[in-house]
């Protein structure tokens, strides 16, 4: 069977016919790419209509003809074959001496052409649906030993990430050298990512995966790919974290140049923030331009927060804008949304409204970013219903010969298995000492246990079901082995406890000096994260001062005048950051300081654990979790348990009742609510004390209040 990867094409009918042909002829093997590859030539991008690669037949280019006019097809064939051959020739693996080691053929496929006389002449073949198999059967690749190389050249899509950084390496076993090897290994997109880039749906498409599964790069390449195929389309790429802007622009630019020899036309390809603000092109955003074009009120964060509350600021603003907007103003041909989990459904609806006819919306999100639950509802809910009560967007079951609407990137390339599993274990409280309020150590848990499988765990023991014991583990399929084999487990992730914060700072500064001076790491390979956003500025002062005295520059990624940039590129400065700015960024060596703050929190346990999770998962290679005090010891014990079990997660899956309790007990309380709870507790205690002392009798209290309290206690099972 041939696997079809559906790219963007402006020849839909003949492409469809070609896909159907291969569906009918399931004896053929290999991969059929529609609308791919695009070849960069001195004259600009040269798109190949379709390419089939297989071990039996080699590479076959299809020049597609939508109608019946064949004029000039010979020259078109020469062009496609020559350009692809030129591309192949630049790969040594595909050459034998000076000859191409790949069997390369080209055919013009004109399914609408009825009375084709045979299959054309020997050099220039023309086929329709009926005659194509005859022509194909005449092909043969005798020495197909270079098939794996051929496939990898086609699948790799881009070498975009390679050589991103110049490293001056002297030792083969230094951290710098290890990091370089890691970066090179993940430079090539895997097959799944490659398909996600190319597969283009005439409608809504969803891409999910863990942090580090490559969603951002897939989206960037996808934008560049769509732009290359359809330079006249208006395309927007949008996101939540401002620091992504530069990253996107850079990726898209490099990819465009690599694939098409041209810089993208930024007037048609907009990389813009989701929110935006007045002040010209560079500050524009999707929400802002929606408000502007509809002439409705725009909220900046401050006013949105004031009106809708801090948690719902953007959601509220988008929702209000949607309601106020009357007619649909369709601006874009395609919109690609990254970090959709942070952008909420109303924003996706805004995007949907801004799209022309086919509604080509691609939204990518972290399924597990917040650890709370499914981060976005299913598309039927997000996009609402039409007049007849039918959902506007529904994902079709995947079918051969059709582009996939729903893609899961299952491999996590950023974090190794021990690092990721530790982050999950601590984030969920898998090995936390059971609390007497909930009877379990767990802090939060998905309602849909299926999510554990979606994010790459396997059940190795027990059952993934309510009330059942289960053991989950990550395998090589979802956490590639090369991510952890470069260093020992203790080096990949370690926890260190200090007697004082001064000691912590001194140790940190010394380690960083070693990293820079001996380990061949560059300053921007290192980030230091303080989990509590409110104290970061001061908490990192000590260590930064020590570094300054050692002659090492550092900076705080704080409230900054250039919010789009996270690392000062090439500045030779170590990044210190609070947890918010750390989101969406990564580095080889991650130091987390004051981790004790993440062990326990009276009013926001889930939040502080999520911070720890986010911080740990910033690491591409090594993590050091530092902290002081008794809470740090307890945190270390939880980690030890995970480590002793070889980073498997063993726990009893809470049932629905328990999960509800977890959400209540560990929910975030606003400052007001915290006070209410405190006051309530104080009042209750003083009442009890008075009752015990006999200064107040139950009979003194209002009857109905006592009755209500009794009923409340018995209902909640606490009586």
């Amino acid at each position: 069977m041939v696997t079809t990867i559906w790219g963007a094409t402006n020849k839909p009918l003949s492409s469809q016919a070609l896909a159907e042909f291969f569906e009918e002829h399931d004896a053929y093997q290999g991969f059929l790419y529609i609308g791919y590859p695009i070849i960069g030539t001195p004259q600009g991008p040269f798109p190949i209509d379709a390419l089939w690669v297989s071990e039996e037949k080699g590479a076959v280019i299809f020049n597609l003809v939508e109608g019946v006019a064949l004029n000039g097809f010979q020259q078109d064939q020469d062009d496609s074959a020559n350009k692809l051959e030129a591309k192949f020739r630049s790969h040594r693996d595909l050459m034998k001496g000076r000859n191409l080691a790949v069997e390369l053929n080209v055919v013009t496929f004109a399914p609408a052409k009825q009375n084709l006389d045979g299959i054309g002449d020997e050099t220039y073949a023309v086929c329709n649906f009926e005659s194509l198999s005859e022509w194909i059967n005449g092909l043969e690749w005798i020495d197909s030993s270079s098939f794996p190389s051929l496939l990898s050249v086609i699948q790799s899509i881009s070498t975009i990430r390679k050589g991103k950084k110049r490293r001056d390496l002297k030792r083969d076993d230094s951290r710098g050298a290890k990091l370089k090897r890691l970066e090179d290994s993940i430079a090539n997109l895997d097959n799944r990512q490659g398909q996600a880039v190319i597969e283009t749906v005439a409608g809504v498409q969803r891409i999910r995966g863990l942090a580090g599964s490559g969603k951002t790069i897939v989206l960037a390449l996808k934008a560049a790919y769509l732009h290359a195929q359809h330079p006249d389309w208006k395309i927007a790429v949008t996101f939540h974290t401002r620091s992504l802007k530069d990253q996107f622009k850079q990726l898209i630019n490099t990819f465009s140049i690599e694939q098409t020899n041209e810089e993208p036309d930024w007037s048609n390809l907009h990389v813009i923030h989701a929110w935006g603000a007045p002040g010209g092109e560079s500050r524009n955003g999707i929400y802002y331009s929606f408000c502007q074009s509809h002439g409705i009120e725009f909220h900046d964060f401050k006013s949105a927060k004031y009106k809708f509350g801090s948690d719902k600021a953007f959601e509220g603003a988008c929702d209000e804008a949607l309601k106020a907007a009357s007619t649909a103003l369709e601006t874009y041909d395609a919109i690609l949304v990254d970090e959709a989990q942070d952008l909420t459904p109303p924003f996706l609806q805004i995007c949907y409204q801004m799209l022309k006819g086919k509604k080509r919306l691609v939204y990518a999100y972290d399924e597990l970013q917040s650890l709370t639950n499914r981060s976005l509802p299913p598309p039927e809910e997000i996009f609402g219903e039409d007049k007849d009560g039918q959902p506007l967007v529904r994902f079709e079951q995947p079918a051969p010969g059709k582009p996939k609407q729903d893609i899961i990137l299952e491999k996590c390339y950023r974090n190794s298995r021990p690092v990721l599993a530790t982050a999950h274990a601590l984030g969920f409280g898998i090995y936390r000492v059971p609390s007497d309020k909930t009877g379990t150590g767990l802090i939060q848990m998905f309602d849909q246990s299926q999510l554990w499988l979606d994010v790459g765990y396997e059940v190795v023991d027990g059952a993934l079901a309510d009330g059942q014991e289960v053991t989950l583990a990550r395998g090589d399929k979802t956490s590639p082995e090369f991510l952890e084999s470069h260093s020992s487990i203790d080096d990949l992730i370690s926890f260190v406890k200090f007697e004082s914060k001064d000691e912590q700072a001194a140790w940190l500064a010394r380690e960083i000096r070693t990293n820079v001076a001996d380990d061949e790491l560059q300053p921007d390979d290192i980030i230091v994260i303080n989990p509590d956003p409110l104290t970061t500025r001061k908490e990192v002062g000590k260590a930064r001062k020590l570094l300054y005295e050692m002659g090492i520059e550092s900076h705080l990624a704080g409230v900054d005048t250039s919010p789009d940039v996270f690392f000062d590129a090439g500045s030779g400065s170590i990044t210190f950051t609070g947890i918010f700015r750390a989101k969406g960024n990564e580095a080889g060596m991650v130091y987390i300081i004051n981790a004790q703050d993440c062990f326990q929190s009276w009013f926001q346990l889930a939040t502080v654990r999520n911070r720890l999770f986010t911080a740990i998962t910033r690491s591409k290679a090594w993590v050091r979790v530092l902290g002081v005090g008794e809470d740090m010891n307890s945190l270390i014990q939880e980690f030890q348990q995970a480590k002793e079990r070889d980073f498997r997660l063993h726990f009893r899956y809470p049932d629905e009742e328990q999960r509800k309790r977890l959400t209540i007990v560990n929910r975030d309380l606003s400052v007001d609510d915290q006070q209410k709870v405190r006051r309530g507790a104080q009042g209750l205690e003083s009442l009890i004390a008075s009752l015990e002392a006999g200064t107040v009798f139950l009979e003194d209290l209002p009857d109905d209040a006592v009755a209500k309290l009794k009923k409340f206690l018995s209902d909640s099972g606490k009586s």
Partner: protein
Amino acid sequence: MTPREVVRQLNALIGNLIELGLSESQNHPSERRDPSGSLEISFNGAERVTAALKNQPYKTIYDQLVSAQAYSVKMPDGALIQMSYRFTGEGLTGHRLAFFPSPYLEDFQNEPEIYEADEVFADIVAKSVVPFPVRFDFDSDGQRFEELNHPMSHLTLGQFKNCRIPVSAPLTPFQFLNFVLRNFYNTVHRSYANEMLVCAGSFADTIVGTESEVVHIRVGGG
């Protein structure tokens, strides 16, 4: 103060700002001896600032300085502090001490909670604040000096072309930083009062004749 003392003081002050969380990013002092024998104590990145910045909108100037990382210290609110001194032998012949507040404050959307909760920003978040640059220049070069019109040590506000408010003496790094913090970060300055480094030392008066008869600035501790 001697060149050594100035460098030592700069390092100590920058270290102190870092420790207090008041330096978002910084550059170590650099030293460059020019062929004529004068010693320029500046900051790494100073050479990247060009004179082409004259007569540009303030935002442009500010952006260029940020992207060239041409500052001694960048404050958490984005304000830039530049401190450069020039010596011939042991004698001070020039300084350029500048404070460039960020022109973008009103636009911040990222993490406004932190922004609002943090006292570093207390003095500058008000909508009515107009960020403008403040510069203390000193030049003992006889050619430029012109009594009253171009005092050796003077203060320029807001890049006004002929704004040269006479100053009684050159400023030490401490005197300058203290001036900036006291006036533009008053809330922080007060609450960190005990942790802030205080440095002694001063330069001799350079104010002459009629300069002290007009409104002028008297450097204390001299």
